[in-house]
């Protein structure tokens, strides 16, 4: 009897997060997705051997899993080597200083190629930088457009035309402009980083911009009238009345923007040979070893997972910030 009522911690957790789920649908909410994934893997496993490419057979789930382990091992050994390299330098510097305390010592960073994990890090930093820049432009601009219908009418055609432009079209222009204008002897950022970031910004700011403008213009007119009766100054009006009212719409826009930013970034890295996951895919493609396709598949799944996680994080932030959730 008591064994039957022993609470299952996973079920408890799920029930706490989704209090309205009953036992039956709770089961469904776990088993059905699991079943879906299983069917997908089986189909993949069956279909993959039928596809022959010049680099060999299309990888099966097992191949991909193996390469994922491989990539992780490579990362670990590379890190160990980097640590050793640093240790050696430190030891050498200590020796030099012992002989001659006046001597100038130098530390060089590890010259090894970036691993898959490093590339993920680079891509994440780039996408977040581009997305933050896009947000910093789109939200204030969207508020102005939403508040002033003359300004909205004036900017509308430009927004409509620039919105559908593909990152591939922007990239050459951005690359050239960055090369020409971003010159410094000791650059804080790599040029490639700036190029990718700006391309991401240019492509991802539109949904946030349009949603902010729409959200702002749709704020309850009664509330706007309250603000008028109170004679709130412009900034108080924007901060206390308009912005909170538009927050749900803004966040919907931000989530779409972040999704686009992530997609654009991979394309930009691939085409421009900027470091990151896109470059990893491209390098593997050029490399053409028998493991390449599996490794690319690892990257594909990673890209998908990270995209999904980014969206979940935005959703969590939205729940914290928005008053209606």
């Amino acid at each position, binding site marked *: 009897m008591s064994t039957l009522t022993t609470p299952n911690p996973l079920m408890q957790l799920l029930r706490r997060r989704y209090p309205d789920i009953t036992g039956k649908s709770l089961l469904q909410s776990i088993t059905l997705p699991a079943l879906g994934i299983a069917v997908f893997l089986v189909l993949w496993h069956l279909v993959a051997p039928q596809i022959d490419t010049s680099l060999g057979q299309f990888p099966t789930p097992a191949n991909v899993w193996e390469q994922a382990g491989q990539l992780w091992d490579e990362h670990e050994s590379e890190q160990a080597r980097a640590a050793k390299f640093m240790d050696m330098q430190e030891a050498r510097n200590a020796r030099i200083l012992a002989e001659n305390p006046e001597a100038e010592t130098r530390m060089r960073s590890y010259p090894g190629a970036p691993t898959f994990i490093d590339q993920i890090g680079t891509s994440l930093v780039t996408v977040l930088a581009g997305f933050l820049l896009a947000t910093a432009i789109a939200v204030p601009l969207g508020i102005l457009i939403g508040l002033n219908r003359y300004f909205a009418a004036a900017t509308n055609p430009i927004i409509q035309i620039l919105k559908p432009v593909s990152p591939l079209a922007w990239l050459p222009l951005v690359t050239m402009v960055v090369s020409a204008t971003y010159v410094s002897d000791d650059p804080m950022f790599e040029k490639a980083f700036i190029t990718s970031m700006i391309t991401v910004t240019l492509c991802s700011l539109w949904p946030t911009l349009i949603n902010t403008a729409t959200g702002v213009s749709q704020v*309850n007119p*009664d*509330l706007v*009238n*309250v603000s*008028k*009766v*109170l*004679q*709130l100054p412009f900034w*108080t009006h924007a901060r*206390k*009345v308009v912005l*909170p*009212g538009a*927050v749900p719409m803004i966040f919907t826009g931000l989530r779409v923007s972040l999704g686009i930013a992530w997609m654009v970034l991979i394309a930009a890295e691939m085409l421009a040979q900027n470091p990151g996951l896109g470059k990893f895919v491209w390098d593997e493609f050029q490399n053409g070893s028998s493991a390449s396709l599996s490794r690319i598949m690892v990257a594909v799944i990673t890209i998908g997972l990270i995209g999904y996680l980014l969206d979940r994080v935005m959703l969590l932030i939205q729940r914290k910030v928005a*008053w*209606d959730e």
Partner: protein
Amino acid sequence: MSKPHLELTGVSMSFDTPQGSFQALDTINLKIAKGEFVSLIGHSGCGKSTVLNIVAGLLQASKGGCILDGQEVNSPGPERAVVFQHHALMPWLTVYENVELAVKQVFRKTMSKQERRDWIQHNLELVNMAHAAHKRPGEISGGMAQRVGIARALSMRPRVLLMDEPFGALDALTRAHLQDALMNIQQDLNSTVIMITHDVDEAVLLSDRIVMMTNGPAATVGEELRIDLPRPRNRVTLADDPEYVHYRQAVLRFLYEKQRFPGKSEKAEAGDEVSTPAEQPAVAEIIQREPGSIDSSAHTDKEKAAVIEHS
């Protein structure tokens, strides 16, 4: 005669619509004394909100204007506080913060932080809402939210309080409570109030004067009725008061007899006798049924009863 506190002179209003210009109001003249409680009553769509919005400064009259204490009104301001039909509280601010937004803005120069805090608290207590100060509008009932809306308006210490169907969305009991609360507050503060209402009892109970508007388009003031009932007024004892009943009937008569037919009343009334082209009786019928529908159905019921008795 001394100058009136609030004066509307020759106020006309036309709206630009896709179908061309639409004249909603025509030459409205109204003088309101300080401390007077005036109700605006009229059929739906006649232009009551438009009048109120012009006084609030949220709309600009196309002709004529509004003068408050010798100054022309041409923009909204906190000395003419508005209570909206649907409370219009910021849903992301608590009850306290909603009132604070107003108090901070209006008294930022004249009150210290502590004074402001006390003043917000005082106004919340006035409407019996201090206990819910830290709740959001979504967490309180419609009647409570409406009280907060009134507290916010009162907290601006307005010279005129403008209320657009403040109790329209509430159930009868809550409405009665709020009417009593409003009566008490108004008597204490002696504020000038213009209130729009559809409720004849509410108008007679609360007002010093009822301004009845004719049907639109081009609506104007049809009749004015001074309510000389002594204050404080009690709804229960008034119910049988012959004077109260008389006032009530006067308003009803205006609304349901003189203004019975929205639009062209004579023609519709004559519709039964005059023979009209094929499609016109239908129109006349619809116009006639709408406001008087209760009467006409009662009539047919009586006839039915008579038939049954005979058989």
